[in-house]
């Protein structure tokens, strides 16, 4: 199909038109610009579309600051955030470890400071972590960070560079859990640490706990049994006017899909988008139906 000149001009012009003019009565859903966040936002959208809501999408917002600025203005009304990010990067409060406490603080402070409502957190947690292959898990009997701390002298770590130095990474782990004196530590670019694990060049790799590579490479994420890392459960941030729509229908819908977002589900969703290169909207509607 060819574009007519009028269409071309209209498209050219559309770049200059602000998003909020145009579609009215549609719910404006936004997301940050990485697969998991986009996919979760699409899941909200799919769930709401199932209930016959019209959706206006503003995916791919470049940073937490931009997403927050947009929701404060009402350019978007709903977007998925992480409890840890909300606590540390938005509220600038010190890290806390208890997921319930973090959620409580975030919910209270968002209401108080921004007038925004924070909906229920997902069971899944996209935090930092350490991953091993199933073989290593069996051989050294490591399933938790406590076990890994003790077994470390026999293990080689493949880490992203900042993991070695940051206080919320290896040095913190060593202080908090004790041990964690690895036999060797090698650094890799983000993403390549998993390859090292699979090739057998390392036994333990730094990981994001919902990373698609966990599924793709059949890795085991070690349980943070004493909760060293702050929780990063997914919560929908919504504007006040959204809460009361149709006696809370929007909130009920989002709560329902959020309750389905476990670690395993998030890894699977990320796998579909990142590894299978599928469109997040397609993956989301499949997930909801």
């Amino acid at each position, binding site marked *: 199909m060819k574009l007519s000149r009028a269409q071309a001009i209209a498209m050219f012009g559309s770049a200059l038109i602000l998003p*909020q003019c145009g579609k009215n009565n549609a719910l404006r859903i936004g997301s940050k610009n990485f697969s998991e966040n986009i996919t979760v936002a699409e899941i909200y959208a799919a769930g709401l579309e199932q209930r016959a809501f019209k959706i206006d999408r503003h995916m791919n917002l*470049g940073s937490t600051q931009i997403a927050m600025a947009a929701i404060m203005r009402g350019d978007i009304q709903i977007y998925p955030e992480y409890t840890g990010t909300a606590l540390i990067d938005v509220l600038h409060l010190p890290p806390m470890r208890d997921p319930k406490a973090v959620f409580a603080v975030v919910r209270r402070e968002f209401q108080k400071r921004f007038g925004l409502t924070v909906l229920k957190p997902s069971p899944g947690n996209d935090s930092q972590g350490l991953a091993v292959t199933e073989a290593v898990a069996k051989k050294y009997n490591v399933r938790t960070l406590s076990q890994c701390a003790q077994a470390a002298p026999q293990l080689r770590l493949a880490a992203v560079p900042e993991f070695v130095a940051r206080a919320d990474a290896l040095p913190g782990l060593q202080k908090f859990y004790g041990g964690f004196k690895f036999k060797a530590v090698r650094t890799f670019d983000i993403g390549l640490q998993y390859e090292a694990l699979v090739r057998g060049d390392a036994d333990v790799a730094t990981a994001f706990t919902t990373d698609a590579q966990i599924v793709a490479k059949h890795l085991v994420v070690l349980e943070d049994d004493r909760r060293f890392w702050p929780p990063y459960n997914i919560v929908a941030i919504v504007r006040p006017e959204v809460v009361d729509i149709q006696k809370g229908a929007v909130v009920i819908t989002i709560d329902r899909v959020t309750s389905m977002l476990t670690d395993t589900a998030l890894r699977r969703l990320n796998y579909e988008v990142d590894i299978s290169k599928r469109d997040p909207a397609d993956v989301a509607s499949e997930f909801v139906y």
Partner: protein
Amino acid sequence: MTYLFSHWRLIGVLTLQHLGLVCAALAIALAIALPLGIFAARVPRASALLLGLLGALYAVPSLALLAVFVRYFGLGAAPVIVVLAIYAQFILVRNIAAALRAVPRAQLDAARGIGMSSRQQFWRVELPLASPVMIGGLRLATVALIAIATLGGYVGAGGLGNEIFFGLQRRYLEQTLAGSIPAALLAIAADAAFRALERAATRRTAG
């Protein structure tokens, strides 16, 4: 390349949006940079300060700057155009000032001496003689803005940044290329067009 072929309509729309962002930003940037450049050329002492300030703005991380303007203008094209226009100032003002300073003194002295008013001196002599260097600055600014306009992807303004950033994020080379190749072609085309203009202007004004 299957991605590009299956998404060519989307890429077409994004390319036009990209061009729209750059053109709007350039028009605004030029309207601001011209008086600033003239001022910088006339008042050398203030020009160091002005260029220092614009250089500092140029160094502000784009995402932070974008977030600031989203707060005022909301999502969409407006904050991107403002950020692009700000970034363009550094290149444009410096070049406009340099272009004006490079105009031969003799021709300015003659213009004044034969009775042109200061306005006539500027429009009839100074600006035409400065135009090749100015067009050179415009060329640099345009190419830079085509690259920076990928920021549009961050605030829902569209443009090729959408494909580039999402492709990069999920290591999907085809998607990244589907965004980068049209952007590169735009940049090459703009560069060639301005080079031709620059050559024509140089041919007319070489002493």
